[in-house]
């Protein structure tokens, strides 16, 4: 556990020492703020359903930029050789890096909680619904980070890693649009794969076992694949 925390601290330190983290932070919050005020002004409703949808969509673009260097940079600079020759398990390396990135995106999400206080001040929002929405967006982002980590472990080229992440995330996000071309179990499967359908439930305060299983199993699967990827590609 100590090593996971050490690696997470190093990841976070590395992020905050590079300008990209601050650019992402400022840019993301600025865009969220613009959409928040536009949506509140238009809908005149004390809820965050639409802003959650905007956040979900924008995170698809932001997360790959954040995660592309996690392993790619270690590979290109050779520091992966250092990490993997210390008495640290590959699981600890993957979890440490995951935790570091997750804390960073949690900070971004945490900063948007100001929206709740604003609508609470002006109206009477459904607190449970907003809480569930935040749980949903956090789970979704946690899932996206795990996808970004896997693609970053595939290559030493950060741009390639980011593009691979975009491909997977776009497929997951837009897969619901292909449902009409299929029937029966395939249709249900594609619907289940789409991130949009799961966040929709959480956005209206509805939490189901199916949604939780989707996010948690997705995170676990991508982290396990990342671990296998760093093992296999370096040992082949």
């Amino acid at each position, binding site marked *: 556990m100590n090593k996971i925390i050490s690696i997470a601290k190093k990841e976070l330190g*590395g992020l905050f020492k590079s300008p990209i983290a601050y650019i992402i932070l400022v840019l993301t919050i600025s865009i969220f703020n613009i959409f928040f005020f536009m949506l509140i002004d238009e809908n005149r409703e004390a809820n965050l359903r639409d802003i959650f949808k905007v956040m979900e969509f924008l995170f698809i673009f932001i997360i790959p930029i954040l995660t592309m260097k996690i392993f790619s940079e270690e590979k290109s*600079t050779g*520091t992966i*050789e*250092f990490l993997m*020759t210390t*008495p*640290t398990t590959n699981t600890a390396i993957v979890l440490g890096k995951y935790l570091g990135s997750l804390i960073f995106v949690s900070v971004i999400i945490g900063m948007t909680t100001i929206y709740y206080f604003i609508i609470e001040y002006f109206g009477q929002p459904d607190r449970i619904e907003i809480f569930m929405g935040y749980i949903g967006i956090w789970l979704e982002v946690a899932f996206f980070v795990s996808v970004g980590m896997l693609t970053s472990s595939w290559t030493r080229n950060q741009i390639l890693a980011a593009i691979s992440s975009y491909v997977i995330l776009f497929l997951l996000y837009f897969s619901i649009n292909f449902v009409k071309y299929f029937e029966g179990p395939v249709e249900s499967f594609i619907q289940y794969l789409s991130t949009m359908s799961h966040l929709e439930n959480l956005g209206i305060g509805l939490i189901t076992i199916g949604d939780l299983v989707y996010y948690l199993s997705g995170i676990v699967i991508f982290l396990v694949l990342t671990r296998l990827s760093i093992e296999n590609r370096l040992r082949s």
Partner: protein
Amino acid sequence: MVIAKNVTKYFGGFLALKDVSFEINKGEIVGFLGQNGAGKTTLMRILTSYLSATSGKITIGGKDISKDSLAVRKKIGYLPETPPLYPSMKVRDYLKFSAELKDVPSKYQSKQIDKVLQECNITDIRDKTIRVLSKGYRQRVGIAQSIINDPDLLILDEPTNGLDPIQILQVRKLIKNLRYERTVILSTHILSEIEQIAQRVLILRAGKIIVDETLESLLNSNPSLKNKSIGSGLLQEKSELGFKNDDKGFALTLEEVFIRLHLQGSEERDE
């Protein structure tokens, strides 16, 4: 300390190491010599568990590296060919991170960091960001990282590669000071490095060990090696660049000399 038996490594269809076997005793200083692509780095990476061998067995300190990798890694200090540094970190923070990953107990970490800073003569740059350091300093920080856990076995992959002559002398001096009470394996291209540091030489060629001898017996069994060890062709080139012929950083590699002598010997026999 290190026993390798019939170690073979394939990368896809490419044979990188073939039936490599050797033993290294505790406290021995061994130099791996060979041209680029000879298999030195692959062998070192297998010894550190970074890569796994396709077949064969390696034990370090009595433990099988394929079965007890974590325990073996605790006993090893490793400096890859390119020092594995995080440019945005400060030297001290990097060494602390290394100490944490290498299981140095937290109460001894600070003491151990001060010790290696002193040993590697980098105390004055401990609060500097790695990005701003010269290549020589970076190499020393890399070496400091490799000894932070006080390893029984120190593996250094071309520790003087790419350094200028003054930095080479500084790093060699540092390695000479580190060798006491440790088993050291280093790879190099340079004969004088082996002469100064190592007791034994393993020459690799195309993934095979072609020589495994103590430096003394190698020189005794090939008297002409002594005369030709500071070879002519390469030094001539170096002297054209303004370096003196007795500059030890620019000697012909031992492997080149050795192979040349063998070729000469076989040609003479043919005649």
